[in-house]
């Protein structure tokens, strides 16, 4: 019997708020599924959208981005830039045929251990519902037989236009 699907999620955290919220969640012994693996950045503003695409391309089924609440950024206002990039990234993902729901932005202050855990639990279930992304497997298949794929595609489009 095949094992049930377990989503693999990368979480990007800000050193000053959400990473500390994760520390607090630990100190409070709150439990959450082991599906989310955190990476520490100094600020959510450091999040290059490439990181998100890299994670999805490396086998992640979802990416959680966390930062300080608007107005509370330790670098004054960099989380607003994160918000702008996030909205643009969602559009890019949609254009690539990837569900926008696989990427989520959440604000969590250093005091919000419990809300962060609730978000992690909720997001894990949301990604579970979306199912596996399988980007690495798809890429492997794709690059094994690229010629046929392209030809099949072009034949199809010629038929449509005719």
């Amino acid at each position, binding site marked *: 019997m095949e094992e049930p699907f377990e989503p693999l999620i990368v979480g990007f955290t800000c050193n000053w708020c959400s990473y500390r919220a994760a*520390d607090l969640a630990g100190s409070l012994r709150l439990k959450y599924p082991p599906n989310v*693996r955190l990476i520490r950045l100094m600020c959510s503003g*450091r999040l290059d959208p490439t990181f998100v695409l890299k994670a999805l391309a490396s086998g992640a089924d979802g990416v959680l981005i966390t930062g300080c609440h608007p107005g509370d950024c330790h670098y004054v206002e960099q989380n607003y*830039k994160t918000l702008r990039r996030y909205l643009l990234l969602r559009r890019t993902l949609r254009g690539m045929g990837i569900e926008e729901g696989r990427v989520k932005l959440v604000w969590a202050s250093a005091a919000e251990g419990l809300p962060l855990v609730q978000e992690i639990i909720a997001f894990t279930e949301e990604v579970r519902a979306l199912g596996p992304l399988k980007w690495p497997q798809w890429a492997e298949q794709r690059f094994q037989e690229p010629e046929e794929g392209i030809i099949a595609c072009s034949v199809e489009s010629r038929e449509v236009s005719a």
Partner: protein
Amino acid sequence: MSEKIGVYICHCGSNIADKVDVGEVARWAQGLSDVAISRDYKFMCSSPGQEIIEEDIKTLGLTRVVVAACSPHLHEATFRGACARAGLNPYLCEMVSIREQVSWVTADRALATQKAKALILGAVRRVVHQVPLDPIIVPIHSDTLVVGGGIGGIQAALELADSGTHVYLVEREPSIGGHMAQFDKTFPTLDCAACILTPKMVSVGEHPNITLLTYSEVEKVDGYVGNFNVRIRKKARKINEELCTGCLICQEKCPKKVVDDVFEVGMAKRKAIYVPFPQAVPKYPVIDVENCTYYIKGTCKACEKFCPAGAIVFDQEDELIDITVGNIILATGYDLFDPRRIPEYGYGRLPNVITNLEFERLSNSAGPTSGEIVLKDGSVPKVVGIVHCVGSRDKNYNNYCSSICCMQSLKFAHLVKERTGAQVYNFYIDIRAPAKGYDEFYQRILDEGTNFVRGKVGEITDVARSPEEEGKLIIQVYDTLAGVQRRIPVDMVILSAGLQPRADAKEVGKLFGIACSADGWFIERHPKLDPVATMTDGVFIAGCNQGPKDIPATVAQGAAAAARIIGRIQQREIQLEPVRATVDEEKCSGCRICNGLCPFNAIVFHEDRMVSEVNHALCQGCGTCVAACPAGAISGTGFSNEQILAQIEGLLAIGIRGTPETVGV
């Protein structure tokens, strides 16, 4: 590339070992590429634990260290220190939080072990790309700027000046003194505010180490910790300060009277040329050009005619002063909550409903009534109501407690009783009197026979429902102890309006590169352990701009901020974390996208070479520009693209369950 990585897995007693199979993880890590040694130990942070790492670095020639233990916020410095002692650059050490992020939060042991492996693999892959770093060393200029001349700023300036360093004290109003100068008595000792404040003001004015710049505002701040360049606008007083003797004949002779809505909060008038109050420091008056007859009609010049020193200069212009300082203290204070925002309290409509600050002036012997507590018609009130928590602890206005209003209201109750013999009602939600001598003061007020009604006032009205309410102000309140609605007729109502952030706190924060909380108070570096520092190195905060507080707490913060700076000045230089962004000029296309992203103005554009450059002393290392550069020309030390991309790959190489296929890759 081949590195020799040492991987150390901590048991943390049973904190980690209970949920993570540490022996299994250590054996597994030994098989990873680049890993020279992998060990587990009961307490890695203990001296023997650290010695294991130091020994391995020396004997095995480790080039990188990964410690899987608690959060880096606890022990990163510990393990970096161990590496440094063994001769390895401390920034080649990476920590993995397998306690806070794995053993404490994961229910299942097998899944926890698996997650620990994934996090460790991420760190092992990441640490390979780390580069040796050295702390950035910046010299500290020994002058300090203090912004705000209230009691907090005064205390800070005096502490610094007494230590022998130079201070620039900048105050927006014509005199220092702040809110405290307006008060009559101070709780709980009932010392006269002026008696304890004015000697300090005089010390500031006379101190050889203090340059006092009143009627001035900071316009521009450039630079960084140790070396800020500040531009101050000294507004034209229209007085030659060299010649003025402070005799104030000008004030006496000036024919124009204006309502003073700053110092006397609209309760009295002042002249168009004035000092805000008799004990003002400095003693020089200022001409209010918006109201002066000469500036409006072109004639008068009474002040000039009578000035024996010839100190009036009608065409004096604002002066711009550029200074360099090493550190900055902001002690910019608070604004009072405007009770007009609560229309049902009738402030501004009902003449005998007054604010706490108005009562301070009313009861002050130097105030508009010479300290007589009287109604607007000049008669003495027989019943006075004091309403607590006006605009505080109220989700419609401010959620927070303004912290000083309880004690201040108790003080008012005492003063009203002492001076008028009136019956006093205090309307409170809870009495908060936690500091030294405060609860004793509360007991004293209770013993004096003041009435306390527990409940939030619903309405203050002059519409009578019965003959005895006729001509009175009626306070409608739900008494939560008696469980009944009450209507209490009084002659005067004092609203204990709460404290609010300054209306321009956001702009001031932006000017100095510090942030405000959702409520608008400046954010301290750490709410418990670093209450006067901010996230911008070299900028400190003191007093009510950080949150509501009383005079002792404000003074303590002013002194604390000064002490922090004196320590730095004595060190002469400061070490900064080397997490910084750097532009590779070869790759930079000069697009300037990064320029506007930096809130610290750390990125400068060189027009001649058409490239951007990051000033490392200003850069705080957030990395936003690194993420934004379309040419990939900006790199961020400590958090480079290579490091993070490698960490992502490592993290994802191991599934949630079962054994990974990719181990050893």
